[in-house]
């Protein structure tokens, strides 16, 4: 258990990228429509986010500065406005979507309409962010999030993927008129997992935990185990959907549909496990997104920030959370579909992905911040590759969103 708590920051960070409301829906749809044909996108994104998270944690551990603060300091406030604005808009949409995910999970458990449960979910998120310490915020979802490993168990119970599904791993069945949707889903997976808010949250979390140069080993382990955990659960969900939903011609268009594969494996217990997994991961993602927004704003504007401060001691940092909860409730009460919001949020994030990631190349080679712990050539080549990928995702995501109607 102690080892798990050591890497809790990584697991909570991974939850936001790999198994939040949008990611569950994307994984479900990807598996149902293309079998294992999009697993490559998950694997590519996993390697990329491991590298980025490790770098942001190393930066904070060595310099004491979170990534957002380093961007602002090194490139100036005008430049920082670009990632800040895109993050505030995208995270506002994502935050509302995640609260919607919590409400839908509660609805799956109780049978009550998710529209009625939306304000309840928002209040629960607000109270947790307001009163809980950072330790509780990271350890709670990380421990409870292990319920997502039930996706892996379901694959085992169902006897593993049959040969015709395994073949799609290297030979995806993409019909000519499905190519647009296939490409859209690939871009959506890459954009959702290589999401800057995960990096901003992780590096701020490292500061909240008081990491120092001695934490570099822990940082590496957290990045690998945390992101690896997220990747395994997301790929398990893809596999499960490919095994169960695809053959039944179910598209996985709603979250309840995605959970039917768990019902096939475990019966009623499976539906409860799926709803609990959705509840915990979306709740964790809510905490992550809300804190990430406040971290970005506070670090950019030089406000006092951190969960170790009482709300009155970091008033503007906490006021940001209140404002975002109110905005989210207002949007949520309009009845907008959380999955559509998540999709839009991902598209906005993808648009400015290169702006948020390019500074890595400069900052991680600056001895002023990192001393002897600057990037080696392998990390630099990896970073350049990720930035190129970010440009590609940024270039194609919006046109594909329009062309496919969000698939």
């Amino acid at each position, binding site marked *: 258990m102690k080892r798990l708590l050591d890497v809790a920051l990584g697991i909570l960070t991974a939850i936001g990228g790999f198994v939040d409301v949008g990611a569950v829906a994307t994984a479900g749809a990807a598996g149902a429509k293309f079998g294992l044909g999009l697993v490559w996108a998950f694997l590519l994104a996993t390697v990329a986010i491991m590298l980025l998270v490790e770098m942001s944690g190393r930066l904070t551990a060595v310099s004491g500065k979170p990534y957002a603060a380093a961007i602002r300091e090194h490139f100036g406030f005008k430049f920082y406005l670009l990632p800040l604005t895109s993050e505030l808009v995208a995270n506002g949409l994502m935050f509302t979507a995640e609260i919607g995910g919590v409400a839908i999970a509660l609805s799956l458990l109780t*049978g009550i309409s998710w529209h009625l449960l939306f304000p309840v979910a928002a209040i629960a998120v607000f109270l947790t962010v307001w009163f809980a310490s950072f330790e509780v915020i990271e350890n709670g979802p990380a421990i409870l999030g292990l319920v997502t490993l039930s996706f892996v168990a379901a694959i085992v119970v169902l006897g593993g993927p049959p040969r015709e599904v395994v073949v799609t791993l290297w030979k995806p069945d993409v019909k000519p008129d499905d190519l647009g949707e296939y490409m859209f889903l690939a871009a959506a997976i890459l954009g959702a997992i290589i999401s800057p808010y995960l990096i901003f949250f992780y590096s701020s979390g490292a500061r909240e935990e008081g990491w120092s140069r001695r934490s570099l080993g822990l940082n590496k382990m957290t990045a690998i185990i945390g992101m690896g955990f997220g990747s395994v659960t997301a790929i398990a969900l893809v596999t499960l959907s490919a095994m169960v939903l695809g053959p039944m011609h179910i598209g996985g268009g709603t979250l309840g549909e995605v959970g039917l594969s768990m019902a096939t494996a475990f019966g009623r217990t499976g539906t409860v496990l799926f709803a609990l997994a959705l509840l915990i991961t979306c709740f964790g993602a809510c905490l992550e997104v809300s804190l990430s927004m406040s971290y970005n704003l506070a670090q950019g504007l030089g406000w006092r920030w951190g969960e170790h401060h009482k709300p009155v001691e970091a008033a503007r940092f906490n006021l940001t959370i209140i404002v975002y909860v109110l905005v989210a409730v207002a949007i949520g009460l309009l009845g907008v579909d959380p999955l559509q919001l998540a999709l839009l949020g991902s598209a906005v994030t993808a648009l400015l992905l290169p702006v948020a990631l390019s500074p890595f190349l400069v900052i991680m080679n600056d001895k002023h911040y990192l001393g002897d712990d600057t990037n080696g050539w392998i990390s630099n080549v990896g970073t350049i590759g990720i930035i190129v990928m970010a440009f*590609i995702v940024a270039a194609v995501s919006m046109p594909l969103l329009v062309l496919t109607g969000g698939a």
Partner: protein
Amino acid sequence: MLSLVALTPSVSGCEMVKSAYVSQVGGAAEELAAVATTLRLVHEGRVTRQYAQSTFANYREVLVSFEPKLRKAEGAPAPDSVVRAVSVSRGVAQVIESPCLDDGCDWRGQLAALETAAAALDEEVGG
């Protein structure tokens, strides 16, 4: 990855994206298949009643917008295609509105109607 960029401009020009009509009808067929599966799993005791109630509410939200979206959709192969698809969806509207989640009603009849409707829509788009 680079193929994503290379292919994007050609996506709209070629037949790499389904027409709005095919997307809508295909999506509705998938949704009806999900409705039928949920109903079957409920009566096999594999889905909790609460889960079923919640998912049916979501199915209703998705399917209620099917008809207006379909009427606006471009790319129908023949003028009566839209009429046929709308007629199929209307045929099971009552089932989606009041699904038989208990044993005291004709859930098998509802299941058969849903499966027939899903297959009909699937056939409509050559699925």
